[in-house]
């Protein structure tokens, strides 16, 4: 090496021989070498000469070299001073780099099974096959999967068969059911049709059966404590018929008169879910209709005014609802209730492009229409996670009167290209209280919570919503697909 180095530095730059004809860039075009005979495979035998190393791969013909931009090469340049052949560097192993990148590899490895599933779905369009399987070509018959998840009730799944105008009378028929892991279930059948003879007013009829073995019950009163939680088993059968008050085409107004029958049985709940109500010496008094099955008749009136600009991504408008309902036990006259409820939700655009403030306020009162009457459990004013106080457990507060209010700010953070799908987070604050009399509504103890949520929406429907509320009793989360929360 030393002699070679000496030769390199000690010898004056040799005169370059003129490159032979056909040579470009000082290098003869190479041709793929003839492949050498294949070496035998397997371990070498004892005494045998070691197998020769595998021959190098043949090479493709070298295309003509690049044109020079700096004039012709002088004839005295040595052929080995410059070369048009790039010597590819040895790629460093970069072990330290790969060690630092291990978390990245771990993440990709963890997601790999999902890749198989996604690939399977896309390659065979399983999504489209399922959709096509669940509905007919005309769109009149559709099977809709139902899913439900909540922290208290767990996961539930079911399906609903929807028949749309199958009989040609613009009717909608729905038959469905859902079962949860704890074997609580719901069954529902419904019918809806607009009656031409009644100026297009809609007639609705439905029958629902529900078993809830772990209905939360915290006693009656605003001062009930979290540790007062009990579980009640509720079996309910509802049959309802309703007809619209206003004719079709009434833009913002909606009214409904309903007549119904309800059969409810209340008993001790599933002890795996909590302490059953109605135990001897339990300081938490069970509801008045506990321990028996009662048949009720119902009649009610609902009036609604809806001037929202869209159903889902509402920017402005008002949604007001007023309802009254009389419920009376058909076999025990002291279980009855007259309930009146009003709620107003206002949508106000505070900034352009869906930055919306939503304010809601509601009040409800129920009283027994007879002096010796008692109020059935379902008729009490209810505040909780699904009813106005998102930072508290479901069914948290019950009493005869109550008010609630909330303020929510919604704004978009993501829109998928030009599609109508949008993700919108929200920050909210709720407040409310219940009481035994109207004067209790102005007392100081008000329950309140704050929270954040995020919703995935289209212009006309809510796809999913997730909320986390925080109150003095801790955190509550809610997730829903579709409208219900």
């Amino acid at each position: 090496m030393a002699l070679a180095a000496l030769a390199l530095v000690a010898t004056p730059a040799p005169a370059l021989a003129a490159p032979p004809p056909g040579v470009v860039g000082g290098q003869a075009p190479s041709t793929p070498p003839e492949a050498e005979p294949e070496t035998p495979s397997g371990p070498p035998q004892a005494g045998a000469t070691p197998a020769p190393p595998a021959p190098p791969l043949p090479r493709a013909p070298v295309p003509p070299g690049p044109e020079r931009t700096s004039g012709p090469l002088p004839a005295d340049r040595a052929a080995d001073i410059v070369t048009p052949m790039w010597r590819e560097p040895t790629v460093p192993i970069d072990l330290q780099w790969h060690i630092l990148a291990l978390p990245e590899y771990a993440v990709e490895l963890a997601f790999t099974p999902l890749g198989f599933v996604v690939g399977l779905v896309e390659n065979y369009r399983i999504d489209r096959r399922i959709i096509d399987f669940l509905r007919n070509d005309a769109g009149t018959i559709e099977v809709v999967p139902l899913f439900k998840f909540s922290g208290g009730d767990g996961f539930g799944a079911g399906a609903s068969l929807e028949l749309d105008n199958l009989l040609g009378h613009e009717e909608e028929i729905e038959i469905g059911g859902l079962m949860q892991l704890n074997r609580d279930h719901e069954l529902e059948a419904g019918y809806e049709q607009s009656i031409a003879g009644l100026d297009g007013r809609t007639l609705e009829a439905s029958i629902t059966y529900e078993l809830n073995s772990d209905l939360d019950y915290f006693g009656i009163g605003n001062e009930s404590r979290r540790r007062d939680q009990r579980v009640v088993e509720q079996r309910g059968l509802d049959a309802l018929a309703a007809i619209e008050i206003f004719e079709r085409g009434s833009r913002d107004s909606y009214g409904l008169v309903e007549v119904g029958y309800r059969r409810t049985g209340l008993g001790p709940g599933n002890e795996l879910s909590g302490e059953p109500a109605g135990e001897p010496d339990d300081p938490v008094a069970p509801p008045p209709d506990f321990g028996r099955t009662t048949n009720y008749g119902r009649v009610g009136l609902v009036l609604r005014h809806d001037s929202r600009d869209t159903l889902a991504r509402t920017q402005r408008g008002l949604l007001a609802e007023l309802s009254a309902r009389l419920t009376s036990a058909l076999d025990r006259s002291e279980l009855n209730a007259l309930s009146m409820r009003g709620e107003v939700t206002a949508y106000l655009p505070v900034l352009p492009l869906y930055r919306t403030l939503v304010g809601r306020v509601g009040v409800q009162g129920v009283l027994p229409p007879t002096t010796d009457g008692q109020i059935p459990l379902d008729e009490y004013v209810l505040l909780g996670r699904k009813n106005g106080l998102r930072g508290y457990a479901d069914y948290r507060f019950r009493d005869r009167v109550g008010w609630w209010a909330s303020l929510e700010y919604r704004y978009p953070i993501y829109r998928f290209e030009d599609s109508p799908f949008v993700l919108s987070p929200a920050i909210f604050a709720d407040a409310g209280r219940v009481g035994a009399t109207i004067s209790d509504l102005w007392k100081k103890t008000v329950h309140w919570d704050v929270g954040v949520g995020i919703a995935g929406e289209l212009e006309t429907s809510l796809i999913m919503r997730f909320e986390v509320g925080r109150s003095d009793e801790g955190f509550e989360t809610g997730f829903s697909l579709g409208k219900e929360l």
Partner: protein
Amino acid sequence: MTARRASIPACAVAALVACSPTWKRPPHDERFQRAAAPALHPRPIGESLPTDWWDRMTSSTVQPLGNTLSPARYVAAAAGGREALDVNRLGEVPDSTWFANRIGRRVMTPKEIARGPGDWIEPAPGPLTVVSGKLEGATPGLVLRDTAGRVYFVKFDPPAFRELSTGAEIVAQRLLHAAGYHVPEMQVTELALERIVLHPGARQRNSYRQMVSMSQRDLDGLLSNLNPGPTRRLRALLSRETRGRSLGPFSYRGVRIDDPNDRIPHERRRSLRGLWVFSAWFNNSDVRRQNTLDTFIEVDRRRRLGYVRHHLIDFGNSLGASGERDKYVGEGYEGEFDWAAMGRRIFGFGLRYDDWLGLRRTPYPSVAIFESEMFEPERWRPSYPNPAFDEATARDTFWAAAILARMDRAAVEAAVAGARYSDPRAARLITDVLMARRAKLLRHAFAGFLPLVDPDVRGYRVDMTDLEVKTGTSREAPRYRFAVRWNRSGRGDRELERGDRATPSIDLAGALRRIQEREPGAFADDPFLTLTWRRLRGGEPGPRVDLHLRVVGDHLVPVALWRERD
């Protein structure tokens, strides 16, 4: 050389050589080189086309999540990134199966640019037989065979935006070809509907991705949905099959394990990293592996050996186009699932509005949304993160911008002319926007560098080109400070000359003559010079460019170039 000098101990000389930087060791790199001929190998087995959904999911979520959790990313950022590996000592990318220097090496005439790659052959007269519906991509299309047996892939414009997709593909294809990338041959033409006939065995994919027969009704439906006018002719983009057998796409990360020639990780290829500059230029927001293609070129037919060539395809998301429709207003300004942008908006509480929300379509349906005023190179985002783009360093960007700088208005007009827009105002608007975006990209790429390129060495004279001056992006009259030193291994360098000049050009004959007179045979042992240029900005010297030269007899040879970043 005197006998005394010849008596330097051999070990000392050997030590000098061993201690010298690698760029001093011959043979030195020519400026434009070619990679060694690829080794021949059997055709890699099977196509590896990942599903589109999974590709989007990994690009948008899985890889960015892994990247965020990976310390490697932050270490690389702190260290200024990992430099590319497919670069020679003069900072150029050699010709290879990935890239071929074109406009970067020689002047391309507007006619060449407008014509595009290959020797385009129009379909032979007579019927064009539909052999299948187009299998991949977002735009409706057909595969046609002419009477001479040539196969063409045909794409059409969305009915509401005539010339939008086809024009965008052509403009991008012409510019990428001129830059040096391997792209398919394509041309825009008008097809008479009467020529399109259905082959009895034509196939297409149905909604379940099953291959089914294509009926005349299917074909009529596709053609009528394209809304041909009363002339019964449709504008169409025809492209030829790329040379070789399709092997599916290549990834912008890692290597192809069944290709023995593919040794450099793709994210460390300057040719792929620098592609972001061109993608940002004409707003090709869909630069995913789905829009790449590897083909197997069979060289030895008897032994069925060949090599893999790498192409870019599908430029239908360029300019104002986005496949079957016009671009969504945010394309190019944020990714399709831009988690960082979402995070900023969550904590912004809706009080902040993205400036691009104010963008409006141009008056031309063939252009849609394509603008330059709001465009900022450092903010440009492809729809899905690209691993090679993410690893691009400032030098990779500079390299691409140096090529971009050679595409003057005439070149851009030629590329746009290839798209055959029917409205000259639309063509002019596209050209104007491209030139304005080009100027911004050049300013961004050259920031922190002294953009001296094209070392032209004749005898002892060295001329370089200042790209900022050439492209007019420099506002002040330049003044250059140079220094020439004798770059000696094992000994201190000796400065030969320094001074200021109005242009980056210098004749070193005088300096070399003076040293040769004082020390005859001075450069026999250590024949290397370093010419350092800085540009004076407000009287202060900026970042430097070191051009290393070797003295060879009566002339100099450039052997290496180093560009400092401010």
